[in-house]
């Protein structure tokens, strides 16, 4: 048996065959051909064209009912693929200029991409990303490489990849992915968020995973311990299967708490909300057992689309979520792009330190057009539920003022148009930048609520790039400084009677939240997969224990010490049979 160690980002366990995901990167051979080779190259091109066409037809059939928007994009790709001028251009490049098929395809597509990217109209410029997509598909078909897409796993398996992009997440066939294993990405990377939201066990940061593991090889992904096991003996495999069975049993036990109202053993009500990225069925169904949406990541709407989503598209997505949650609050986070999140169709300048750069609100304040479109859509959707709007990446009171200024502009526009919106929308901030936490007594006066983004707060507080796997040991969520800054923040907001919650990954970690309850926090938001375990822990907790934990944590000076203490405490709580309101 060989054991590989990585970082657990979504706990659980899986046993299955490796599905190696390697996105196709065309390697184009640029060669001139002889007269005698023209015919062959033309045939190769026509065959690739036919193959790419039939792939697109099949995909459209597959998505017709599932995802009509995706289907429309695929149909646009087919129009491009079969475009007369492009096809004739390629044929001419082969017959007249004597370029080999691959080179002819590349030259022709590049010509059109160059023209389109030089146009003033951003809507048209954005089409170049689609053209690049179609080009890559054609090149892949020319090389006879089958499509290795995340949406067509032949059988359930463990996904092994270098890294996953937000766009991969959209097409991910979640039912067939038993586990995720990647070379890159830290605990708060996109892969981690994807895995958590679908409850898929995941281990990241296993160096050279794509070369170590072979397609179809059976492996054990133990995301309880943080190891991947390969080449197991029969006995070792039996042990792993036993462990998997008991892991599933524990999950089932926690599952009993999913539909219960979250209340501590001594009756204090704790709000448990969910983090969502889209208006999908699973996100809407959670209304039945949560106290609302604590984080609606609006950027997924921008990432799933091939151009900036229109006001109407945003309006209907927001409306859908607001309607489903009725009177329960839905916290919509305005566009959080930049840092590790990029939009393929938006040409953002490359920055030396993107996490310290023009991201999220900073970008929105500059691109007022984009920001205002989103705000207008949100305001209009407010009529259908209980909308709270949250600004990410707020560092100072000036930022709050600037954001609210644009809200006023959007409102004035709607007033002029006679479009209604609710007057009781709540406005708040995401606390990620330590500076705003340290002036939270002033911020609490300006806004209606705050929610802590622990991922970025920890990244900025510890000066650790959370995407860098080499720095995992420096990225200490349990750092004493985190608890100190959170205590102050919670105290300042509670004193003003303003809502304060947490929506970062730590908000779903039962051990981490115990002292926060002691500090006075009563609202937590987390991925769907963390809800049940969190409610189970809360049912076993009493306020005296929470206050004591808060006191003890403040006396501790090291992350390791705090983590060990709180982990032991949460396990001890579950062990104690003192749960009075047992199912």
């Amino acid at each position: 048996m060989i054991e590989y160690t990585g970082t657990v980002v979504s706990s659980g366990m899986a046993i299955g065959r490796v599905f190696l995901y390697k996105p196709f990167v065309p390697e184009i051979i640029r060669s001139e051909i002889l007269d005698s080779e023209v015919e062959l190259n033309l045939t190769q091109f026509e065959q690739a064209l036919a193959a790419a066409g039939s792939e697109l037809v099949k995909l459209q059939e597959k998505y017709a009912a599932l995802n009509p928007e995706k289907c429309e994009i695929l149909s646009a790709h087919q129009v491009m693929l079969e475009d007369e001028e492009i096809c004739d251009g390629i044929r001419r490049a082969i017959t007249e200029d004597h370029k080999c098929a691959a080179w002819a395809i590349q030259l022709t597509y590049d010509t059109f991409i160059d023209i389109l990217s030089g146009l003033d109209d951003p809507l048209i410029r954005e089409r170049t990303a689609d053209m690049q997509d179609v080009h890559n598909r054609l090149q892949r078909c020319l090389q006879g490489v089958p499509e290795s897409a995340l949406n067509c796993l032949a059988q359930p398996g463990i996904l092994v990849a270098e890294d996953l992009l937000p766009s991969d997440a959209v097409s991910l066939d979640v039912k067939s992915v038993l586990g995720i294993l990647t070379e890159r990405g830290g605990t708060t990377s996109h892969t981690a968020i994807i895995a958590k939201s679908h409850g898929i066990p995941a281990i990241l940061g296993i160096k050279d995973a794509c070369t170590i593991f072979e397609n179809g090889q059976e492996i054990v992904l133990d995301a309880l311990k943080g190891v991947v096991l390969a080449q197991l003996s029969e006995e070792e495999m039996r042990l792993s299967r036993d462990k998997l069975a008991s892991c599933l049993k524990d999950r089932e036990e926690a599952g009993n708490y999913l539909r219960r109202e979250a209340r501590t053993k001594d009756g204090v009500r704790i709000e448990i909300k969910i983090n969502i990225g889209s208006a999908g069925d699973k996100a809407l169904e959670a209304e039945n057992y949560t106290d609302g949406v604590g984080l609606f990541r609006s950027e997924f709407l921008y990432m799933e689309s091939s151009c900036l989503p229109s006001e109407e598209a945003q309006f209907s997505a927001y409306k859908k979520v607001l309607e489903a949650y009725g009177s329960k609050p839905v916290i919509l986070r305005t566009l959080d792009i930049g840092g590790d999140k990029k939009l393929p169709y938006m040409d953002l300048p490359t920055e030396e330190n993107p996490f310290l750069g023009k991201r999220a609100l900073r970008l929105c304040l500059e691109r007022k057009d984009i920001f205002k479109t989103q705000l207008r859509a949100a305001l209009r959707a407010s009529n259908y539920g209980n909308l709270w709007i949250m600004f990410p990446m707020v560092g100072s009171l000036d930022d709050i003022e600037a954001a609210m200024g644009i809200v006023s502009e959007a409102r004035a526009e709607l007033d002029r148009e006679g479009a209604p919106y609710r007057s009781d929308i709540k406005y708040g901030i995401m606390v990620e930048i330590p500076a705003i936490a340290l002036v939270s007594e002033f911020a609490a006066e300006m806004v209606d609520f705050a929610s802590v983004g622990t991922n970025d707060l920890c990244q900025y507080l510890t000066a650790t790039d959370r995407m860098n796997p080499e720095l995992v040991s420096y990225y200490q969520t349990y750092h004493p400084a985190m608890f100190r800054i959170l205590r102050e923040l919670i105290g300042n907001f509670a004193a003003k009677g303003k809502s304060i919650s947490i929506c970062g990954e730590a908000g779903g970690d039962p051990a981490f939240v115990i002292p926060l309850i002691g500090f006075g926090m009563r609202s937590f938001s987390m991925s769907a997969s963390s809800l049940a375990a969190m409610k189970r822990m809360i049912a076993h907790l009493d306020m005296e224990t929470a206050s004591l934990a808060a006191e003890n944590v403040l006396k501790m000076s090291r992350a390791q010490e705090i983590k060990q203490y709180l982990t032991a405490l949460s396990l001890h709580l579950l062990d104690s049979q003192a749960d009075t309101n047992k199912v």
Partner: protein
Amino acid sequence: MAIGETMVVNKTGLHARPAATFASAAAKFKSKITIKNLDTDSKEVNAKSAVSVLTLGMSQNTKIRITADGEDADDAVAALTTLIDAGFGEL
């Protein structure tokens, strides 16, 4: 040979979907059909190619010329100008 001139009326201009609709409508005719952006004095491009139509960067209020040459030239120009005037269902 038939020639027609008109103006793009739909708000978003001849971007992806309208360009594809336009090109596939043009492809139904036997004539050789070209389209030209009169505002930029572009060259004439193949109206049956959606990507070529896109390259003209035609937005709302852009003046255009459609030229057709062939047996069904008159019908082609009439049908395509009507299509543009109807605003691709965006009006």
